[in-house]
């Protein structure tokens, strides 16, 4: 259950970004999570809600962009028919060992915020 730690780090990164631009209230944080990052997106969102609940960013949303890992065959190219959570032992076409690519994303991509004073101005 390290999602709480990750949620705290996401919020810290967002706060640092907003404060460096003069301050404001976080509206949406968008993160990329890979299939091999050992993170459960649903739990990450629950943890996020707990992290932001008490502060000035209460209600800020966390959007999770999910990035599956790809198993590719060096001979046949990408293997596309893998279902989520199912791993292939060998290439179904030629029986060769597959390569695993991607899926280790664990990034804050972008955020949206309302700058201090912006709401009063509009």
């Amino acid at each position, binding site marked *: 259950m390290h999602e709480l730690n990750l949620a705290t*780090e996401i919020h*810290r990164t967002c706060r640092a970004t*907003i404060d460096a631009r003069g301050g*404001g209230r976080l*509206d949406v944080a968008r993160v990329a999570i890979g299939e091999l990052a050992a993170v459960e997106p649903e739990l990450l969102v629950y943890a996020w809600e707990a992290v932001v609940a008490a502060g000035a960013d209460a209600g800020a949303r966390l959007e999770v962009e999910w990035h599956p890992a790809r198993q590719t065959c060096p001979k046949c190219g990408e293997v596309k028919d893998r279902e989520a959570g199912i791993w292939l*032992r060998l290439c179904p076409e030629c029986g060769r060992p597959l390569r*695993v690519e991607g899926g280790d994303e*664990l990034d804050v991509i972008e955020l949206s915020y309302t700058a201090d004073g912006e709401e009063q101005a509009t």
Partner: protein
Amino acid sequence: MTQVDVRQRILSDNAAAATTLRERFAASRTLVLNLVSSPGSGKTTLLEATVRALAGRLRLGAIEGDIATERDADRLRALGIPAHQILTGGSCHLDARQVRGALEAHDLGPLDVLFIENVGNLVCPTSYDLGEDFKVALLSVTEGEDKPFKYPSIFAKAEVTVVTKADLLPYVSFRLDDVRAQVAALRPAGTLLVTSATTGRGIGEWCALLEQRLAAKRAAGA
């Protein structure tokens, strides 16, 4: 509303601490392993067998991560190697900042190989770089043969998978070939070793791997 491109790793503070550690281990020419497995799969027992096998040949040390008790560090200190216990107090993984803090507070002396034994957990430690040269995943035969595909992250990230308690193979349903196929699918270039600390099976291979990797690191850094 203003939109900002952030493009930053979520664990950037941990990554920065891991970079500091990696530089420190490069300077001290120490090979560092991050051992990850479920609780009770035999991480400390493998280390005990390793210490016995390499006694007098390599200077070994350990950092032990546990939620509570100094028991693991005590077991290794009893064999004469420096060991420091990090008590995480409930946290499910070690963070690079904890390892850095531990090494600043407790100098383990000059080491050839440092083992960082993570908190027993096949999931959470996967995401945290501790400045190690490589991760080692342990899987005991009593845990069942389906684990690599059920916990793909750690078996994809571990350069070496060590199957432990192989002396129990006659008593459990654990098809080694199936485990080999799963690990190979997740980490095609990885190494899989089959060991038993009880009979000594595979301990020689494991120690040879450590010596080879240490020599390779030192040759690359020379």
